[in-house]
Every structure is written in C-alpha cells, then in structure tokens.
C-alpha cells in the first residue's frame, strides 16, 4: 500500500488553518502577523483540540493547544470555554458591569472573542446555555469581588484555569435534567485534558501551561541561525520540581505510590490536567456520582475504577504555571504543540525547520548583479536553483503542516523521506496510535517591525 505525494499532501493538509492579522492601510499595529495551525490524528477520533481567538474588549490574542485523554470530551470543553474564562478575568470592572446589565435587560452583548477556527473545530450547541450560565456566575462573582485593581495577566490566567476546572467539576456533581447534557458533563469531568495557552499583547507574551504540551520561542541569532527558547515546563515525571511538588502535597506514607512507572499513581502521564475527577474527588463522591449517573457511565469500567493507593485526594490540579516573556525583535515565532510533536522532534530542530520555512518563503535574499560579471545563462541557472529550493522544501503553505511533515516523515538524516511519510500515514487506525500520537501545532509569527517600534518607544 503506497500513498502518492498528492495523497500524502491531502492527508497532511486536511486540518490546516491560517490566519493573517488584517492590515489596515499597510499599518499593522499588531505584534502578531498571524498564525498557522494544523493537527494530524492518530486516535480515532482525535483527542487533541486547538483554539485561537482575538480578545475584543481587551487587547491581545489567545492561542492554545489541548491534549485530551480518556476521550476527547474534556479537551473539547476546555477548547470551547477556557478563552472565555480568560477573557472575562481580564475585563475591567466597568465592562463586566456593562455585559451583566446587557444580559439582565436582554440587550445585545458586547462580543468578547473573535474566534479563528478551522471548519472542523466545532462548538457544542447543546451545552452552550449551561456553559454560559457558569461563565455568567463567574463574572457576577468578579463584579462582587471588585478589587479596584488593574487586572494582572498572570493572575487572570491562573484564576481562569482554576475556575473552569472547578466549574467542570461542579457541573458534573450537580448534573443536568437533560439526559444528554447530564451524560456530557460527566464525560467531560471524567476525561482529562492538558492545556498550553499563549496570550500575546504587544510585547508581552504570557504562557500558561497545565500538563505536558509545550510552548517554544524561535529566536533568530545575529548570524541568522535559529535557536529555541522553551517557555513552559512539562508537568510530568521527567520534571523533578513537579515530582517534588506532588510529593509535598501528600503525606510521606504515600511517597512510593504517588509516582510509579513515570505516571501519577501509576496511571496518569501528565501531572496537571483539567477534568480527571477520578484524581480529584473523594472516593465517596465518585461512587455517588457514578451510581446516580446514567447507565452508560455505570457500565464503564474506567469510570468505576478507583485508582490504587487513593488516600488523600486531590492528586491533580488544573492550576497552570505562567511564564512571562517580553518579546524582542529577534523573537520571530512561537510554537505551541502537544507532546505528539515533542516526542518525535527536538526543539532545536523545530526552531530551525520553522525558521527556515518562514524566512525561505518571505525573506529570500534578493539577488543584485551589482558590478559582478554574470551571464544570462548563469543568472538563469541561479534563479532556477532558487525556485527549486523554494518549491521542493516549501511545498507547504502552512508552517504547522511543514512541521508535521518533518515530524512524521523525517529519516535518520533529518530530511523528509516520502516513503516513510507514506507508510506512517497509511497505518490502519488501530495501529496508528502505536507509532505516533495525535499532533497539534500552532505556529504564531511575530511582527519584528512592530516589536522593534514598541521597544524604541520605551
């Protein structure tokens, strides 16, 4: 079984999406030029999710990747809801009041987010009312709490993450009279998801990370070479600080059973996650909810199963680690990706591949004849070579697609091997998960000119 190059391309490009921040009269005042995103499923259906949106009532852009486990329900819910929680957390008091008054009197709401979605990225229509009510309760509390202080982005991010996870948990405990919704909120709560979210506003880049997805900055050195700066810490067994944190939070007696086979309680790879109430609720609560829940839940061995050595819940949190970075003109792009990418590629290679891709397409050095002796034939050969370089290496229109092509198709020499690519992509569904994980990538491109101008202003 063999896939032709066009077939390979149609698989790789099926989920690609690009967004360019619109320029007004050639004056682009955003530090973000735009982004490319893509995902390649290994699970069927894919358990990764991605989101991107522009905050309309505050400045800034939000981008995030979400790696689901035990189903996609939680990742889906987080991808739909988290940005609203963040946006609301960032809103000034007056805007919150205005929104609340509008809801109260049935007037049209100010739009909070402008989504940039691939047609395959859906929203759950059925749950929107439920989700909205939870969100409204949150902003009503924020209104009541009015501290009068300006919103700190770091705090807003942490609050939003924690609040959403809390709401997911509460909704599952309370249930819903509608049986479909009831089952949905339970599936959301019993499945889990990591989240790696970037908030870009001018030169201020915040990364909030929960779990083992990763954010990486591509930096162009003065000599034109590329280097990578990681802007998040993986929350897993490889992270000593994380292991230490978990151990600190539980009695000494559990020290041995907390992390087994590099997994939390011997079960869970990420050490922080949304949902996963099996690692958060008390045993009594879990039993009560499962028993009173719908049959589908009751019949599910996974949900009924209580993790071993489960003594002092919660073992898991959705609280993110937030890293702030001030963008510099040499910071050219940001890669957000789920662990499916990082398992197969070193960050240094990611920086180089994306960097060369972006500059190759946009900034190939112009040729000038100057005072040199060049013949028409030589020039013709030179131009043909330049074109060939562009077309063979850069058949992709999307940096994320290009990265996936490398992640899946790279041979031992670090170049894309079509045969390998074809094999990897034609694996049957049940085998695919053995060879690769879901991969989701967002590549955000920065506008160095705007960033430089910001710097000069200060």
């Amino acid at each position: 079984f063999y896939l032709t190059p066009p077939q390979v391309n149609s698989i790789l490009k099926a989920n690609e999406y690009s967004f360019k921040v619109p320029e007004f009269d050639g004056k682009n005042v955003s530090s973000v030029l735009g982004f490319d995103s893509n995902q390649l499923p290994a699970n069927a259906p894919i358990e990764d999710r991605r989101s991107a949106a522009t905050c309309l009532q505050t400045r800034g852009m939000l981008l995030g990747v979400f790696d689901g486990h035990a189903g996609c329900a939680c990742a889906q819910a987080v991808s739909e809801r988290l940005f609203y929680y963040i946006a609301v957390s960032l809103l000034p008091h007056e805007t919150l009041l205005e929104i609340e008054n509008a809801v109260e009197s049935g007037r049209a709401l100010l739009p909070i987010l402008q989504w940039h979605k691939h047609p395959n990225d859906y929203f759950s229509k059925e749950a929107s009312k439920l989700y909205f009510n939870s969100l409204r309760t949150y902003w009503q509390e924020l209104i009541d709490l009015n501290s009068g202080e300006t919103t700190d982005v770091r705090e807003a991010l942490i609050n939003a993450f924690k609040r959403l996870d809390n709401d997911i948990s509460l909704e599952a405990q309370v249930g819903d009279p509608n049986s479909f919704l009831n089952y949905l909120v339970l599936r959301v709560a019993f499945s889990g998801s990591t989240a790696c979210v970037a908030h870009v506003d001018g030169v201020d880049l915040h990364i909030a990370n929960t779990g083992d997805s990763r954010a990486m900055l591509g930096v162009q050195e003065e000599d034109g070479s590329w280097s990578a700066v990681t802007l998040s810490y993986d929350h897993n067994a490889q992270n000593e600080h994380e292991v230490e944190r978990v151990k600190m939070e539980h009695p000494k007696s559990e020290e041995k059973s907390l992390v087994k086979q590099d997994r939390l309680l011997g079960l869970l790879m990420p050490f922080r996650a949304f949902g996963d109430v099996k690692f958060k609720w008390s045993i009594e609560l879990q039993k009560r909810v499962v028993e009173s829940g719908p049959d589908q839940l009751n019949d599910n061995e996974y949900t009924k199963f209580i993790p071993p050595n489960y003594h002092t819940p919660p073992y898991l949190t959705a609280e993110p680690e937030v890293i702030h970075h001030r963008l510099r003109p040499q910071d050219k792009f940001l890669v957000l990706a789920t662990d499916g990418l990082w398992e197969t590629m070193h960050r240094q290679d990611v920086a180089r591949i994306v960097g060369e891709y972006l500059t190759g397409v946009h900034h190939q050095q112009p040729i000038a004849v100057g005072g040199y002796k060049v013949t028409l034939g030589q020039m013709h050969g030179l131009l043909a070579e330049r074109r060939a370089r562009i077309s063979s290496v850069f058949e992709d229109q999307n940096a994320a697609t290009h990265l996936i092509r490398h992640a899946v198709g790279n041979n031992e020499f670090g170049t894309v091997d079509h045969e390998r690519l074809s094999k990897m992509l034609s694996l049957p569904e049940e085998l695919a998960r053995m060879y690769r994980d879901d991969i989701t990538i967002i590549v955000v491109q920065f506008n160095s000119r705007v960033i430089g101008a910001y710097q000069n202003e200060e």
Partner: protein
Amino acid sequence: AAGMFLRALSDIQWRAAHPKWRRMTGSQRGTSTTAEPHPLSLPAQAQVVICGGGIMGTSVAYHLSKMGWKDIVLLEQGRLAAGTTRFCAGIVSTARPVAVELKMAHYSNKLYQQLEQETGVQTGYMKTGSISLAQTQDRLISLKRIASSLNVMGIPCEIISPKKALQLHPLINIHDLVGAMYVPEDALVSSANVSLALATAASRNGVQIHERTSVSHVTIQKGQVTGVETDRGRIQCEYFVNCAGQWAYELGHSGEEPVHIPLHACEHFYLLTHPLQEPLSSSLPTVVDPDGRIYIRNWQGGILSGGFEKNPKPLFTEGRNQLEIQNLQEDWDHFGPLLSALLRRMPGLEALQIMQLVNCPESFTPDMRCIMGESPTARGYFVLAGMNSAGISYGGGAGKYLAEWIVNGYPSENVWPLDLKRFGTLQSSRTFLRHRVMEVMPLMFDLKVPRWDFQTGRQLRTSPLYDRLDAQGARWMEKHGFERVKYFVPPGSDLLDLDHSKTFYKPDWFDIVGSEVKCCKEAVCVIDMSSFTKFEISSTGDQALESLQYLFSNDLDVPVGHVVHTGMLNEKGGYENDCSIARLSKRSFFMISPTDQQVHCWTWLKNRLPDDSNLVIEDVTWKYTALNLIGPRAVDVLSELSYAPMTAEHFPSLFCKEMSVGYANGIRVMSITHTGEPGFVLYIPIEYALHVYNEVMNMGQKYGIRNAGYYALRSLRIEKFFAFWGQDLDAFTTPMECGREFQVKLDKGMEFLGQEVLLEQKQNGVYKRFTMFILEDHDTDLDLWPWWGEPIFRNGRYVGKTTSSAYSYTLERHVCLGFVHHFDEETGEELVVTTDFINQGEYEIDIAGQRFQAKAKLYPFSSLFTQRRRKDEVELSGYQRE
C-alpha cells in the same frame, strides 16, 4: 551605476548636441552650486499650462505650438524626459488592435522619422522593423487580424513563415513557432531624446519650459480652470493639460474639485546586456514573443529585453511618497520566468553578460486603453496619460489629437475609445485600480479574443435582481461597472472554463443563446437592462422642450406619451449619443442612452443647456430597474398583470405610460425593446423590482417566459440592422450616413445642432454608408467568426471596415454591419456613396486574411420578420424553461 547609465542614455547626448538650449530651470542636479544659472521666474499667466515634461507633455506642447498657439508654459517637476519616458524601451510599434491607437502609432512613427531633421536633435531613430511571433494557431489568427487592418491602412505588413523570421533575425529559435508577422517600418528611438527634440521644437516656437517646478494643484472656479499653483508661484491659465504620467491620478485629486483619472502604476522590468562578441547590428528587427510574454530589441550591440509577466507588482497605490522611481529595486526572482522565455527564444544568448535589470514603473488603465480628453467636471482641464506602456508609440499621435481637441474643440479622429469621459468616479477607487491593473498588465500579451470580460473589479454596480438572476444560471459581463447578463446557462449544461472558452471560432454558448433568441421570437423573454443611462429633464415652462429641440435632431414636440428615437448630434452632424426620449408631460422628458454615456452625455447636456434654475436635469439611472419583455407574448403577460388592454390599438408602439404591474404602481412602461421585436421595457422604481420580476415570471410561465441575456439581444438587433452607439455610431457618423434620415426632422421649425451639415449631406450625398452584410460562403461551425474591425472589399478593393457582427439565428447566417466608402481608383479621394454604388458591388469580408463573400443590404429583411403576433398556433412547449 543605474544613475550613471541612464544619464548616458539621455541627458548627456542631448546636452552635447544642444549647447544652445536655454535652460530656464531652477537648480540642477550635481554638486556644483556656483555654476547654476539663475532661475527664470514663472510668468504670471499663460493660455495653456502643461504639467509633465515626458513624451506626452512635450508632444502636446509641440503640436499646440505647431497649430499656432504660442502662450504655453510647460512645467516639469524634475527634469525633462526624466520619468517613465527616460526608462522607456523606445520601441515604436504600429501593430495595435484598436483602430485609433493604430493611427496614433502610425502618425508617431512618421513624426519621429523626420524629427531629427526638423529639430537637429539626435533621436536615435532607426527603422528596424518588428517581428511578432506566434507559438499557437490562435496567436497566428490574432496576428493575421492585425495584419489585415495594417494592410488596408497602407502600412506594409506580412505574415511570414518561421523560416523567414529566422532569416530576418538569426538568433531566433523557431522550432516551436507556427508563424510570425513582420512589420518592416516599425522603428526604435531613444525616447528621452524624442521628447527633448519635441521640447526643442516647441521652445523655438515660443513655448516656455520650466524644469524643477512642480504643480501642487489646479484651481477651478465655476467648473472652469483658472490657474495652477506651483512651488514657485501661481500661473493663471485658461487651459491646463495633465500629462503627469503615473502621478496624473494624484494630481487630479489634489485640487478642491477632484478630476478622476483612473490609472495605476505597476513595476515593469527589462534587462540590458553588454554587447555580443560580434555586436548586434542596430538595424536588427525587434522581436515580440507574446506567448513567451517578452520583447527583445537590439541595444548598443547587446539586447534590451522586457516583458509583461503574469503576476505584476502594482505600486504607488497609496501615493507617490512611498518610493522614488530611482530607488526601485531590481527583482531577479520576479524576472525569472521572463528570462527563461528569453533564453528559450534566443538560446544563443546564454553567454551574454548582464549589464542591468531596470525597474521602470508604467501606468496602466482599467481597460488597457490610454486616457485623453477634457474633464467632465472642469472645462479647460485636459488629460493625456495612462499609456499602458506604449507611450512612445502613441506619443506623437496622442499629442496631436489632444492639441486639436484643445484648439478646435474636437480631434480629427474618433477618440471615444480613449476619451476620459468613458470613465466616471466609479473607476477611480484605489483598490479597484490596484486590482484591475494587475489583470490589465498581463493582458498586454494575452491573446485578445472576442467577448473578453475583465474578471477583477466586478460586482460593483448591480441590479436588485442580481442574486435572483445569478441563481438561475446567469453569466455576467460588465459595462461601466454594471453587471449585465450575457446568457443563462440551463441547469445541467456544462460550459468551458474561462481559459478554455477563448476562441476565434464558434463559442460554446452558441446553442444557449440560440434558444433564448428563439424564445424572444416565438414566446417572451425578460432581459434585465437596468444599466442603461437614464436622465430626466424638466422645466417650469417650455425651456426643456426648447433646449432639447436644439440639442436633438428628431422632433420632440410630440404628444405626451410618445417615445422618440433621436440622435444627439454635434456641430458636424455626428452622433454624440443615440437615445430614446419619452415625453412624460408637456414639460418633462425621460431620456434613455447607452450605459457608457453616463458621464459623456451628462457633460454634453450640462455644457449646452442654458444656466436656468427653472430647467432641471437629473441622473435617475440608479432609481429604476429596467426589464425588457421581448416577444409576441409580452403583450399577454403585461395585460394580465395590469388588467389593462395592451394591444396595438390601446398601446401602440413607441408609446410610454405609467401604469400598475402586479401590486406595484408607477411603473413606466414603454413599447420599445431595442431589438425591433414586439414587446415592452418596464422602468420600475427599484424597490418594486423584485416584486414586478416575480409577478412577470409567474404570470409568464404559461406563455413560455424565460430569462435572456445581452447576447440574444445583440443577435436580434444586428439582424434587424439596428446600429448601436459606441460600436457602430460615433461622433464622426451622421444619421444620413446610416439610413436614419427618418429620425431627423430637418423641417421641425427650429434650428438644431448639426442641421447645416445634414442639409448639405441631404443635397450632395454622403461619403460613407452604413451597410449590412450577410456572409454567404461562411461555415458557422468551421470558419473563423467575424468580430468587428474586419476590412470590407468591394469588387476586390478596400472600401471600409465592419463595426459589429453577430450570428443571426433567423437567417442562419452571420451578419456584419459596417461602413462602405467610395475611394477614387486613381487618386484615392473619397467620393459620394450612392445607393447604386452599394447595390452594384460584389462584396467580401476579410476575417484574419481569409475573404468571405457577402451580400450587401441597405435595409433589413422586413419580409423575414413579419411579426407573428398573437397567433394561437404558435407552439410553446419547446420554449418552456427546461
């Protein structure tokens, strides 16, 4: 390096040759300040101020001064011939598809040839000839069409074999060629030096030339130019000529009252090389390879080669302050495809050493034709710009026509295709221009086939029915920004895509239009004709009638409710417009003219109607949607919808009445169809348009109604010998010359414009005659189709050209319309054309070099068109909508 070379190309030669040149300039470029001559101060007033010292400005100055006007000032912001003119490739080529452009280029060539002798300035004129290559049969057809029109103008031109092309130019690779066209008299010049020569002659004739003087804006009072403001002071003037090239748009917009000059610059690249080892002869012909998108000329022993790429780079969209011309970058990657084409055409040049890639912006217009004429909003404000990279070819002729226009009030040729007034404000959006010129520039070398529609800048003006018609399969074309239906593609039928539908032969929509025509003949069709220009003229007293009686040749003092077809003639009796006018009341008139008359007709009337607040003229084009109901069953549909009798006794033809249709009241119904078929045009206030359309379609169903488009209309009107303004009729055609004496009332009891000429023609006869030709031995399926511009031969001698053509589904023959002249066999002098002269000839029409026998007629086939009105035996099953 660029600066050095370019100076070598123009200025130095020029100055060396003319040490006596009076430089009336301010500062000169260079480091030395001590040597600068004192700037001559600007005059306080002049009759004419010309802005722009390129080929256009100097040519206008030259021709004005030749015509005896002396009080002229030419202002140049930099130095003479320093803009696009300096960078121009210097090819004078007469092979142009539009007749008036061809004439301009021909005149330019003649002018430049003797210019050196006249002025003493070396112009580098060299008659090299040019070879246009065809890689495909279609290209060869288009070359043959051009060759036919060059030949009948007496310009030597021949279609040659690839082998012959190789003999003319030893470097051409001919293995992929099917033929070529050789024009031996085409020439090369140094365009900057031509411009300087024209300036020198003008200066000797008294024209004042000031360099380093920029015009900031033009002052206009009460619609009349009063002067210009420059950075060195103000000059009062009567006439202003905007020859600012790619800055013309901005200059037009700089004043308080904008003058819209729709043009936009694109980067244009050409390559210069060092000489060949054995330097190329300076008499080697220029090679144009349109399929490869390139041209190649000899240049100082080496070559100069440029082209018009598929992906042009527009620039200066936001105005001139972005970049200076001098700083434009060479872009080799962009030039790559053209370089490939060059080496494919001349593989022997591989080892030739590059000197430079020149980036020279050119300005392009929305329809690939240049812009000349007077502003519709400011009298005395003339424009000559937007040369679509043919500035040097047009320069001489264009300058001459514009000078004539200024001095005489009109040029000596029909320049409507180039008239600024063919555009309105709607073509002057920067976004529109930027998008459109990106389509226009590649078109320079694209195959020009009949019925080409621009694809960019569309869906600007639309009828309220646009979406409805589109959903029913409408295919669209555009006129003056307005979307009009060509035909309706029935569901399920597949037409070729745009690129593959290009043909000189029978088009793929042939049967579709045929069935629309059949339905018009036998049942009823509806055509949305909302794009037509519509004016209302009314007055408190008799002012409207009196003024219109003077401006129109037919008698408009008709009973209220009558519709009159009439020409709007100029002093020479020529058609400035051809329209239908309905008398709505004693004191108000409703006037329908062709779509592209919106600006021209408005200006014409505005400038000639008395300045009287009691006489009001209003453009109501946008207020009405027009539905044309064509066919014998139109009367049934309309009477059922209005509960009013619509038969000929109650509603004779050429009648107009406001009535209700469906629920909608105030619909202006006219019993004309613009096709000679029975039917009505409904002028519907736009908010009722959808309602009336729905009613008509619902009611019409039982009468076999269907939608139709302009292609059907065109076939119907041409087989009926109806002339159309802008295609058949122009400012140089009188009603007498096209058999329309019946639309002229020489005895209407008062004088009207053009009357004298018409009287004279009535007495002494006409020198050309509009004639209808039926092609006899033409196979519609296999032969090339006529288009327009085909030469007409009478007894083997050239007598004129066709102006339009269509397939007549009724006659099952092609019909061409065109003008027949009578040239004296000995002297070539034009003689009177009599009916006998027309009737007693054997005619042939030349389509791309192949001649077809044609039968000439001065009147339509009335017998073939007896109206089968309301005959009940007409079968309708065939015309129900499939």
